[in-house]
């Protein structure tokens, strides 16, 4: 895990000169123009910008949910455009985790079953999937009522369950689109703390789209977008705070 940060490793995510357009002719909208972004393994990058700036499109491209019109999107060193639809679906399931603002959980499945879902799709035996799902839930602070349905949990707890599902398995990249949008400030703080701790705890990379500066401030790098372009970036030295989360694992 220590060498996950090594610069020699492939970036968890790399966008090169990406262009994304919607519509044609006079109705054409350029969602992204020449966007380049590199996210290292174990790095947390926040993306900010006014609505319509292209930040959600960027996440969709990063997760292989949409294709760029030009440029390249690589996840873990693999160019998504070279992958078959099936290979891409597998990559989405195994390497990339998504957390959205809402509608993250399947209402008819229990908390545990929701988290088991990606593992089962991967073909992990049920027993093992259940154990790993429970461990993931415990890691996000959901320690009881694991067999209850999403509606039995508060909004903040549901989002924790969603984070557990996004990280279960060995994800290289977590894509979070306004994960705190539907939560109050205190609950949002807790969910962000959880998400911000992932890179240090698991070595995964996280791209966090948010419009809340207080949440973006958890990131070592904040990227600002406007009109489909990256207009600026604020980087600070990696903080010392994750050490408390990883010291246990590093020994």
């Amino acid at each position, binding site marked *: 895990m220590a060498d996950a940060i090594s610069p020699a490793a492939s970036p968890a995510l790399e966008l090169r000169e990406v262009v994304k357009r919607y519509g044609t002719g006079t109705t054409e909208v350029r969602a992204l123009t020449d966007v380049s972004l590199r996210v290292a393994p174990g790095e947390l990058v926040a993306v900010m910008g*006014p609505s319509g700036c292209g930040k959600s499109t960027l996440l969709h491209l990063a997760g292989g949910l949409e294709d760029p019109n030009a440029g390249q999107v690589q996840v873990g060193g693999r160019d998504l455009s070279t992958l078959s639809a099936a290979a891409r679906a597998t990559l989405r399931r195994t390497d990339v985790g998504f957390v959205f603002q809402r509608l993250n959980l399947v209402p008819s499945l229990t908390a545990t079953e929701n988290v088991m879902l990606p593992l089962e799709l991967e073909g992990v035996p049920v027993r093992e999937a259940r154990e790993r799902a429970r461990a993931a839930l415990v890691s996000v602070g959901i320690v009881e009522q694991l067999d209850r349905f999403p509606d039995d949990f508060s909004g903040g707890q549901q989002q924790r369950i969603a984070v557990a599902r996004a990280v279960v398995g060995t994800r290289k990249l977590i894509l979070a689109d306004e994960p705190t949008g539907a939560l109050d400030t205190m609950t949002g703080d807790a969910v962000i703390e959880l998400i911000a701790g992932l890179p240090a705890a698991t070595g995964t990379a996280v791209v966090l789209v948010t419009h809340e*500066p207080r949440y*973006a*401030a958890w990131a070592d790098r*904040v990227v600002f977008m406007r009109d489909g372009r990256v207009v*600026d970036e604020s980087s600070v030295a990696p903080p010392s705070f994750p050490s408390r989360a990883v010291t246990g694992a590093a020994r």
Partner: protein
Amino acid sequence: MAVREGLLALLKEGPSHGYQLKTAFEAATGGTWPLNVGQVYTTLDRLVRDGFVTSDEADGQKRYTITAAGREELGGWWTAVPGDEPPPRDELLLKVLLAIEEGPGHALDVITRHRTALTRLLQERRRATPAVDHDGLAGALVAEARVTRAEADLRWLDLCEARLLRARTTTTIRPTTNGDHHG
């Protein structure tokens, strides 16, 4: 200035020497509002002159005590609230407004630069929080004040940006691209 009221508040706790007041003031403000001794004595002299404080000398040191009038003055300060204030006049506001005069593009650049700087401040604060623990509650609250003010400025910058972008899409329907300049 609030230093005057701050000293009255501290003297309400009991009589004190000038240097003790300086130290107590700095502790109460989480180390963010350093005073020089001269400023403390000048303020105390004025408070004595206005009858809010009396002084006596013991062992060659001046000791200050709050008067009834001083207590009343302090009471008025606690109950006073911001009323109909003039419009805000700060440098950021001025800079953005003048930048808009120069052109929306320039204004967006100014907004971007300030937003990046304020965000960096938030990033640094987020990482610095454990370091101010020794300042106790006052230090933590001062740090929070900086964070929430930066957030307020950021929110305002976001609003400026959104408005500028909206104004641009509604007013510049056709950008002049035929190059007919008659400079």
